[in-house]
């Protein structure tokens, strides 16, 4: 019992500074807008009604959800080969590769996004090398476009996808792939029928994590999306710190979270079905 009481500070920290505030935010989303302060005294459903009927909010919500979807899929495509390569490395090579993957993870999102600003500048290294290779004639304008936001988000979340997939791949006994090969399976067949299904325990949580985090990402769209492209997180922060309409901001945040959870639930249901069919 004495030992369990050691958890009190941590539980208090999480409860007081996370659970209570988020519950509080739900309450805030039903408050009326205030005339003298950021919120009023009465309660209303009007903010949700407004968000659900206004095409402006729908468009931004959809853009956020779809962008995150694209980021998740691209992230998987980029991460899988890296995870594969990492899972086979041993010794000093493995240490170096882990460091290579961990260093971006340990460097702030803002710093990494700033790096992309330099790389994709009009006379930056990306444009210069594409022109030198003869792929394009004119420099590409990437800064403040949705393309760059997606590219930078993929970069931010690659480690979140590589590490779980790497763990799953490391848990596949080599004997299994040998068995498949000795039964006459081609490399492609072995990959599709043995490796891919067995790496699913890493792919699934990786995809969920990347999706949830990239829907709510604020820094990247704010820095690289510019004023032209707005996403839900930038809109929410603008409502909270720009126009000081706290109830509307909370309602937007809750709408965003609810739709994200809905998509995660649908995705989970679909993949379960797919896995069952694969097993059958």
């Amino acid at each position, binding site marked *: 019992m004495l*030992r369990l009481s*050691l*958890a009190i*500070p*941590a539980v208090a*920290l*999480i409860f007081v*500074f*996370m659970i*209570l*505030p*988020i*519950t*509080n*935010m739900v309450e*805030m989303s039903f408050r009326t807008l205030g005339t003298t302060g950021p919120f009023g005294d009465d309660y209303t459903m009007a903010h949700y009604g407004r968000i659900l009927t206004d095409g402006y909010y729908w468009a931004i919500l959809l853009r956020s959800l779809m962008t995150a979807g694209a980021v998740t899929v691209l992230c998987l495509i980029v991460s899988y*080969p*890296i995870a*594969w*390569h990492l899972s*086979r490395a041993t010794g000093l090579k*493995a*240490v170096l590769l*882990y*460091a*290579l*993957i*961990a*260093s971006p993870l*340990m*460097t*702030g*999102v*803002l*710093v990494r996004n*700033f*790096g*992309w*600003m*330099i*790389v994709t500048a009009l006379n*930056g*290294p990306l444009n210069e090398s594409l022109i030198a290779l003869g792929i394009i004639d004119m420099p590409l304008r990437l800064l403040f476009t949705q393309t760059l936001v997606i590219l930078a988000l993929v970069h931010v979340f*690659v480690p979140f996808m590589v590490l779980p997939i790497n763990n799953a791949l490391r848990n596949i006994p*080599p004997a299994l*792939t040998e068995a498949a090969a000795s039964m006459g399976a081609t490399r492609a067949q*072995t*990959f599709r029928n043995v490796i891919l299904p067995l790496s699913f325990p890493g792919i699934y949580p990786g995809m969920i*994590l990347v999706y*949830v985090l990239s829907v*709510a*990402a*604020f820094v990247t769209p704010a*820095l690289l999306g510019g004023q032209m492209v707005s996403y839900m997180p930038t809109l*929410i*922060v603008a409502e*909270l*710190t720009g126009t000081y309409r706290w109830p509307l901001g*909370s309602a937007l945040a809750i709408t965003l*979270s609810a739709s994200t959870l809905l998509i995660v639930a649908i995705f989970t249901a679909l993949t379960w079905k797919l896995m069952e069919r694969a097993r059958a």
Partner: protein
Amino acid sequence: MSERSSIFGGQGVASFGFALLIVALYVFLIMPLITIIGASFTSGLMIEFPPQGFSLQWYREFFNRQDLVDGLLMSLRIAAITALVTTVVAVMAALAGQAIGGRLSGWFQIGMTLPLLVPELLTAVGLLFFLYKIDLGKTVTGLQMGHILMSFPYAYVSVTAALRQVPPSLEEASSSMGATGWQTFRLVILPLIMPGVAMGGIFAFINSFDLYTVSLLLKPLGGNTLPLALFDFLTYEFKPTAAAAATISILLSVAGVAIVQRLVGLQRAF
């Protein structure tokens, strides 16, 4: 490279193509960091990569900018307090977590890592209203609490992993020799988990140093953290000074990763 490589590691075009792809992907990962570091040493007047010549003028410029230096000092202070508090609380929580058995232990783990699983934006919005409610809005204390909350899971996960490596028999032996719980902890457990504790502290420090969204919403009056100052700087002036500031922050992270590698090995860290 053993039998495992037999799937992609074959001969010819396919494996050459795969090697090329891997190199391209690693370049993608490291590219933004390399360009920032390179651009910070330019002797030219613009942010560019490859840099023109070599000079340390932008570092000098950085340390002459009061707003950026103030941001750096504030970030360092907040991150240091965060590392200290989170490791103490995390060691206590991890010891308690060990004593929880069965299904509850999984829920406890999830609860302790909640700040990692819930997007930073949501927590930040909730905290913004809550800190106002308890009169800590726009104060350094409020911001500090936000940083401690967001960095706690890093410390907790590291300490828990370290504690799992300690065989329970050691603790039994110690108490059978008449040591009190505190003595067992201080003389047996703590020395054994120290690398994990240090690693948790380093991760918490780095995470706090880089936090942006929480810092933006909880920003105290008249105070900026380095990421906030850097964002403002980038919006108005796109000069190599920013690259120098970012390089300092990269070096801090690299140092952190290197220390972790020395202490426990990166493979064990993830």
